């Protein structure tokens, strides 16, 4: 297997069809930044704080006039939108990295506009590191969704798998006093939940979406019950696991900005750094991944060349569930330090959206999950620096973006062809 490049269009011709939706959306938002944050923006200064006080290398604090800076950023965004338009007029697709740069600049403009005049300024380290930590369950949940959808099984039960992982990791860690055992137990438990989904969907051909929704209801019901009937009675001995210690990677953690954000984290974050590229490599560079994708695209063809469709689906879905269990553990022993009732709070459903937004590709899925993580922290932070702004609209943005994506942003987003379809050997 030398080169299996995943390119837009390798699945179907329809995907290469350029659409003007992306540049139009970009130009419209660029104009909004230019007009509302720039020309009609707030008078005053923005302070971008790039370093924590504890850091070895201190970057200078950057202070700039709000309106001027937002106009500059808006013009930059307009330029990128223009480039995108030119690319699309040449019947090509806007590359994802261009959209990512666009998103980053728009983010800077939004943060700057929000923090205009605020004393603490834009605390980049705080925002970025929290974005990452909050996105971990979404990323790992997204990987679970991606793994099962790539082989043709829709996994609506990510929510339940996250919750299972969160619950089991908290309880097992507390009872054994070993957080790593908790992590492993979480993976096994969520893997089992996934196995139920896999066997019912693959062997018994029960509707995948229905079974997924019901598994969520079941896990929510069971964890709610155990939480109130069992954990609450003796939470010191059952639900008090604490969290992993942060591990600062030598040298790397001293890098400005990136060091604190990326290389001074808990093991759950590092595991994510490992899982995402490995999954990408397996999916797009190995025989194993090629077979998995074949099963998800055209199970009959895969069967014909001798791939065991049922078994492939079963194991990919199950291992995906284990990854989601890790994401659940990241909620408790990787962040909060105890299990709370329904603490996954719909993140499993957001993970579903993240999979679509990231076009079933691990790296893009991770970036999309970071977008959601960013909005979660933005909501908290915006309330502090600029009270009175409608935070509800900020939280709405990623959902709207997902809606736009499923409704055909930047060409049609296309799932694996056989996703959701049961396969029966004829």
């Amino acid at each position: 297997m030398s080169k299996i490049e995943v390119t837009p269009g390798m699945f179907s011709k329809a995907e290469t069809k350029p659409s003007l939706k992306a540049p139009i959306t970009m130009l419209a938002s660029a104009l909004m930044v230019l007009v509302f944050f720039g020309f009609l923006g707030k008078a005053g200064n923005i302070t971008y704080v790039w370093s924590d006080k504890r850091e070895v290398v201190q970057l200078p604090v950057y202070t700039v006039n709000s309106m001027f800076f937002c106009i500059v950023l808006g013009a930059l965004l307009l330029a990128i939108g223009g480039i995108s338009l030119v690319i699309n007029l040449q019947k090509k697709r806007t590359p994802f990295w261009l959209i990512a740069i666009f998103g980053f600049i728009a983010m800077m403009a939004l943060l700057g506009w929000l923090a205009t005049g605020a004393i603490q300024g834009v605390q980049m380290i705080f925002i970025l590191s929290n974005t990452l930590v909050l996105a971990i369950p979404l990323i790992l949940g997204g990987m679970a969704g991606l793994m099962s959808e790539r082989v043709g099984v829709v996994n609506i039960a990510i929510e339940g798998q996250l919750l299972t992982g969160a619950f089991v990791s908290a309880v097992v860690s507390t009872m054994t006093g070993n957080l790593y055992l908790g992590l492993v137990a979480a993976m096994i438990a969520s893997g089992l939940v996934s196995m139920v989904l896999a066997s019912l969907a693959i062997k018994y051909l029960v509707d995948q979406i229905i079974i997924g929704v019901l598994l969520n209801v079941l896990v929510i019901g069971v964890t709610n019950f155990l939480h109130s009937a069992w954990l609450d009675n003796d939470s010191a001995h059952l639900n008090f696991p604490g969290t992993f210690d942060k591990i600062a990677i030598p040298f790397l953690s001293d890098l400005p900005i990136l060091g604190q954000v990326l290389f001074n984290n808990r093991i759950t974050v590092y595991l994510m750094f490992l899982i995402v590229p490995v999954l990408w490599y397996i999916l797009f560079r190995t025989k194993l991944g090629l077979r998995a994708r074949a099963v998800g695209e055209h199970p009959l063809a895969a069967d014909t060349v001798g791939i065991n469709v049922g078994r492939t689906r079963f194991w990919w879905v199950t291992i995906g569930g284990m990854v989601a269990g890790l994401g659940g553990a990241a909620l408790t022993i990787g962040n909060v330090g105890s299990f709370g009732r329904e603490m996954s709070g719909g993140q499993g459903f957001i993970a579903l959206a993240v999979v679509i937004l990231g076009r079933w590709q691990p790296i893009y899925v991770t970036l999309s999950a970071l977008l959601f993580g960013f909005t979660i922290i933005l909501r908290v932070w915006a309330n502090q620096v600029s009270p009175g702004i409608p935070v509800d609209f900020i939280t709405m943005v990623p959902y709207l973006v997902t809606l736009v994506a499923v409704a055909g942003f930047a060409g049609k987003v296309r799932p694996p062809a056989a996703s959701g379809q049961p396969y029966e050997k004829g």
Partner: protein
Amino acid sequence: MSKKELKLAELEPESKEVSVLKEIMSGDPVRIALSVLLGFFIGAIFMVVFNPDVVKSWSNFGADPNYALSTVWWTIQDGYGALFSGSIYNLNADNFINGIRPLTETLRFAGPLIMAGLAVSLTFRVGLFNIGATGQMMVGLAGATFVSTRLHMPQVIHMLVAVLAAILCSMVWGIIVGILKARTGAHEVIVTIMLNYVATDLFTYFLREPGLLLEANGGGTPKSDHPDGTAMMGALLGPSFKLNYGLIFAAIAVFVYWWLMERSTFGFRFRMVGHNASAARAAGIKVENTFVWALAISAAFAGLAAATQGLSMDGGLTTSIEAGIGFDAITVALLGGSRAGGVVMAGLLFGAFKAGSSSMQVAGVSPEVLGVVKALIVLFIAAPPIIRALYRLPKPEPKVFAAIQQAKAAKVIK
């Protein structure tokens, strides 16, 4: 086993997925009864295993086995006894009014569940897996809140206008899903999940804005004024019961749903698309338009549920008034087999669970166990292989099954 299944598949021209949905809808009463039984049984195991008294008594099982066994029995009796007295009839009450009150509470809780369940059921029948009842209810609540707190009208009319506003707002939300589905082919599951969040945020924003829905002198918490008395759904059985006019709306909704789905051409079209969309298209039905219509009408039921919920509570409205009904509606619809009668029964069962949970709490049993029971029942019903394997039920004979299908089809045509 798998061979038999294969045969079944040969006789069934449509995809397996559709036939599973159909199997759920065909609602074999024996299987449903067994599922309910098994759900309660496993729930009992949960109650027993996590009861500290039982655990203690079993640790000296050798010393006093009778006591150990009796604690098991008492735990189950306490739990399900409290459920009965909290949801059907309170045997300890001093008079009939107090005794029957739990039943009226069950009806009160069942109303919105039934209406939202009908909303989800309708889309199931069209072959759409709509989990957007939550969002539709949120938007409906926003409409009802606006009319009931900001406009002032005479008695009854005010209430009816508020209900209408809720229905219309919800319908708009449903139509968005329908149009996205019909025009862009976006999967309704994702669209509805996203719109649920958007609707919740939107309603929260409205409740936060002083000029919009925020209560007078309200602070940081998003909460509206108490709805005008004229807009409230009054007590149906006099002041000694909390049961309100919402029940009448639920009854109307059930009848309308039944008539629409079983008797009208509109419903016939819906079912046709649900059975086989490509056949329906070949027969000249505009499938895309049908999706939009189905989601609009479905959302109207959700709006009615929202209005009932919003206009019958004490205090100002918040997003928590929705109380998870939109999500429960999915399980209600699945349990009820998407049929009017089934949804009523399922709504009553879940309503009883809601009504009984407070008395279970009083009896010292975690009412959360009902969440487990609920999930298990629906899981067993939705996944027929499990229950068949557990009870060693015979699989339906392919020939008989096909004959039943044909008979049903013939009836539909006539």
